[in-house]
């Protein structure tokens, strides 16, 4: 077992505050679910929203059964090996089925609750990218794979006292890889999984015609998307503050500035995306602005508790400029059909946030620790997720058949649509 710094005992008031914040944090999941649904087509809306619910359920069950044991907790038993005289902790070795959870310390219980929410959000992110063609069963199965294998591995390395968390102790790289809110474990992992899904499922029919540019297939409900963004803000404020308490052991004085940084990052990103789309298209683009806002929130996830408000605004501005350009690049130049923009928003937004932690850190070596973490995500987790999803695709095919795609996922998979037909009633009062 690796000797890890023992977290200070948590006062009851801080425990109560953090628990309350974690009970608000699922609003992030609700916001992302609305955004995923709004950015898809109307004929797939019920399947999309049911898929969001089913994925949350699947991840919760699978993570409780095996994932939590492998994610482990800092300071508890783990699997490790020696390399170059240093211990490398690579997997947790906790009890299955949440054994011993009720007698764990308050800090451990909060950390586990945080991980339950984190794995659900990570698995929801690719669901939006596979909209209008990804089968419900395959979506749930892929969420189960993420919750059982991929997320626990990464969560142990980053949050469970694994080798990335120990880069500071073992190699003198700052405070080790820092990811207080899950920019790596949730958003980059989710964004890279979205890339794997898009590669495997392929583009929507008609998206890339034989001749000419790609076809625009706009989302069916901008109100869902924009309201989802507002809902996500509430969840994100709670999420980042709770993350700062649980993973950074931040004192109460740091918590208000963490919330302010979250808001500033999102605001800067929205302002930048609004300006970029207005300059490029003559008018601001609503769905692109939503993506910019979300990317600002994602970037804040890594760094909100560690930087100043001015730096948070700068991070948001950079993210907001990059997001619309990347969304366009993915679609027009790289032939990647990502309806929710999850790859640009979550993978790249998370990456920018993780880099910001290193760039604005005061400890020497922190930037290198962040780069090692990013290299791990790209070099291990993207190939791993792609391989696992390719294997899964053989058992549970990701893509719906062409007829199903034509009539819509609602009718094909659920047997009924999300919206009732318009019924015209005669208004008797005018007689």
């Amino acid at each position, binding site marked *: 077992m690796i000797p890890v710094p023992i977290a200070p005992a948590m006062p009851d008031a801080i425990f109560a505050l953090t628990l309350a914040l974690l009970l608000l944090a699922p609003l992030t999941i609700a916001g992302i679910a609305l955004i995923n649904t709004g950015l898809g087509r109307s004929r797939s809306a019920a399947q999309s929203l049911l898929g969001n619910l089913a994925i949350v359920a699947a991840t919760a069950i699978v993570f409780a059964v095996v994932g939590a044991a492998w994610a482990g907790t800092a300071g508890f038993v783990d699997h490790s090996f020696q390399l170059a005289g240093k211990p490398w902790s690579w997997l947790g070795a906790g009890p299955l089925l949440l054994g011993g959870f009720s007698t764990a310390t308050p800090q451990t219980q909060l950390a586990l609750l945080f991980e339950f929410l984190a794995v659900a959000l990570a698995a929801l992110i690719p669901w939006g990218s596979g909209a209008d063609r990804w089968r419900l069963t395959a979506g749930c199965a892929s969420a189960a794979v993420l919750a059982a294998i991929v997320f626990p591995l990464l969560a142990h390395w980053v949050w469970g006292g694994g080798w990335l968390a120990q880069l500071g102790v073992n190699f003198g790289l700052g405070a080790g890889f820092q990811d207080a809110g899950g920019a790596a474990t949730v958003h980059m992992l989710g964004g890279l999984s979205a890339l794997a899904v898009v590669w495997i499922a392929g583009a929507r029919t008609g998206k890339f015609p034989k001749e000419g540019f790609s076809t625009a297939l706009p989302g069916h409900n901008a109100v869902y998307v924009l309201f989802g963004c507002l809902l996500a803000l509430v969840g994100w404020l709670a999420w980042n503050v709770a993350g700062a308490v649980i993973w950074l052991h931040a004192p109460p004085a740091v918590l208000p500035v963490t919330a302010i940084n979250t808001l500033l990052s999102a605001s800067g990103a929205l302002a930048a995306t609004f300006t970029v789309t207005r300059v490029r298209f003559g008018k601001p683009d609503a769905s692109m602005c939503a993506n910019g806002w979300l990317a600002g929130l994602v970037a804040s996830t890594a760094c909100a508790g560690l930087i100043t408000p001015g730096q948070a605004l700068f991070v948001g501005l950079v993210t907001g400029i990059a997001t619309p350009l990347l969304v366009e690049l993915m679609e027009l130049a790289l032939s990647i059909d990502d309806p929710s923009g999850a790859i640009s928003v979550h993978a790249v937004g998370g990456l920018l946030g993780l880099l910001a932690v290193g760039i604005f850190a005061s400890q020497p070596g922190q930037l290198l620790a962040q780069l090692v973490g990013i290299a791990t995500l*790209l*070099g*291990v987790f993207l190939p791993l997720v792609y391989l696992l999803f390719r294997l899964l695709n053989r058992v549970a095919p990701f893509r719906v058949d062409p007829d199903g795609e034509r009539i819509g996922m609602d009718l094909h998979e659920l047997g009924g649509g999300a919206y009732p037909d318009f019924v015209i009633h005669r208004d008797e009062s005018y007689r």
Partner: protein
Amino acid sequence: MKLAGLLVMPAGFFLTIGALVLFPAPAPRAAFVICGLAVEGLGLAVAVRGHMEARGESRL
């Protein structure tokens, strides 16, 4: 081609790990970590290129 690109990416990761283990001095360690990231970037570029070629063929 996509698989080839994805196979190159872990090579970049092992280069990064090698930098941590083999180079205690900050400058060469940082240089090798950046080289590892560059290799991963190349692998990703090859994988994306493979995806674009596959899409181009499916359009015909």
